[in-house]
C-alpha cells in the first residue's frame, strides 16, 4: 500500500480576495464553512469567523499598498490554523496593538477581539512584504 501523501494528512483551503471591504464577507463565510467541516461548535465557528474578518479588515484599513489578502486554513491537530496575509507595506511590530478596552473611542478593538477569540495569535510583520498573522483555534471537547 502506498504511503499517504502529505496532502492526505494536511488539508489546506486557500482563499485570495482583493483587499477591499466588499470581499471580507466572502472570506468569513468560506472560513466558517471550513470550520463547520472540522466539527467546531456554532459558537466557535462564530469566533473564528469574526477573528478572520477582523484580520482582513485590518489588512484593508492599515496595510498600505496591499491589493490582495490571502487566507489559508489548515486542519491542525485538534483544531484549525488560519493564516491571513496582506502584501502591503507592513508596520512596526509595536503598532499591532489595540487600545485599552476601558477607553471609549471609535476603533482599536480588532486585534483585541482576535486575541480574545482565538487560542493562539502570532503576528509576523515585514516592512517589505506585509503582515502575516497566524492564529489557531482548538475544537472544544
Amino acid at each position: 500500500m502506498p504511503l499517504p501523501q502529505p496532502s492526505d494528512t494536511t488539508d489546506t483551503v486557500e482563499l485570495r480576495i482583493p483587499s477591499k471591504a466588499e470581499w471580507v464577507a466572502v472570506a468569513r463565510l468560506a472560513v466558517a464553512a471550513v470550520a463547520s467541516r472540522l466539527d467546531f461548535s456554532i459558537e466557535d465557528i462564530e469566533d473564528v469567523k469574526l477573528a478572520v474578518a477582523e484580520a482582513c479588515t485590518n489588512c484593508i484599513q492599515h496595510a498600505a499598498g496591499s491589493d490582495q489578502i490571502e487566507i489559508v486554513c489548515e486542519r491542525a491537530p485538534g483544531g484549525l490554523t488560519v493564516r491571513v496575509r496582506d502584501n502591503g507595506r507592513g508596520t512596526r511590530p509595536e503598532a499591532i496593538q489595540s487600545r485599552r478596552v476601558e477607553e471609549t473611542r471609535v476603533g482599536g478593538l480588532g486585534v483585541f477581539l482576535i486575541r480574545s477569540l482565538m487560542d493562539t495569535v502570532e503576528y509576523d510583520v515585514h516592512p517589505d512584504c506585509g503582515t502575516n498573522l497566524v492564529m489557531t483555534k482548538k475544537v472544544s471537547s
Partner: protein
Amino acid sequence: MDIKVTVRAERGGTYVVDLNGEIDVYTSPKVKDALGDLIDKGHYNLLINLEKVRYIDSTGLGVLIGGLKRVREHGGSVRLICTNPQIRKIFDITGLVKIFGIYDDEEAAMRALV
C-alpha cells in the same frame, strides 16, 4: 451579507433604528449614515434594535460608539436591544456592555429612563 436600516419615531422623543442583516466593514457606513442623519436632525435619544443582526464586527461596534459619543455631547443616550448570544458576547468581551444600556426587548428598553 447586507444590512437593512429602518428608522421610526417612538414616544418620548426616542428614535428606534431597526437593523436587519450583517454589520461589517462593508455595510457599517450605511448604519453610520443613518445614525448621523438622526443626530444631525437633533434626535439624541436613540434605541438601536440589533435583534435581527446576525453578525457585527469591530467596525460596527465603532459606529455604535461613535453615535454614543455624539449624542452624549447633547445629554442623549444610545440604548441597544440585543438577544443574540453571540453578539452579546462581543459586547461583554469588549466591555461595551458597561457603556451601552443593553435590553432584551423594546419594551424594557423604552421603560428604562435615560
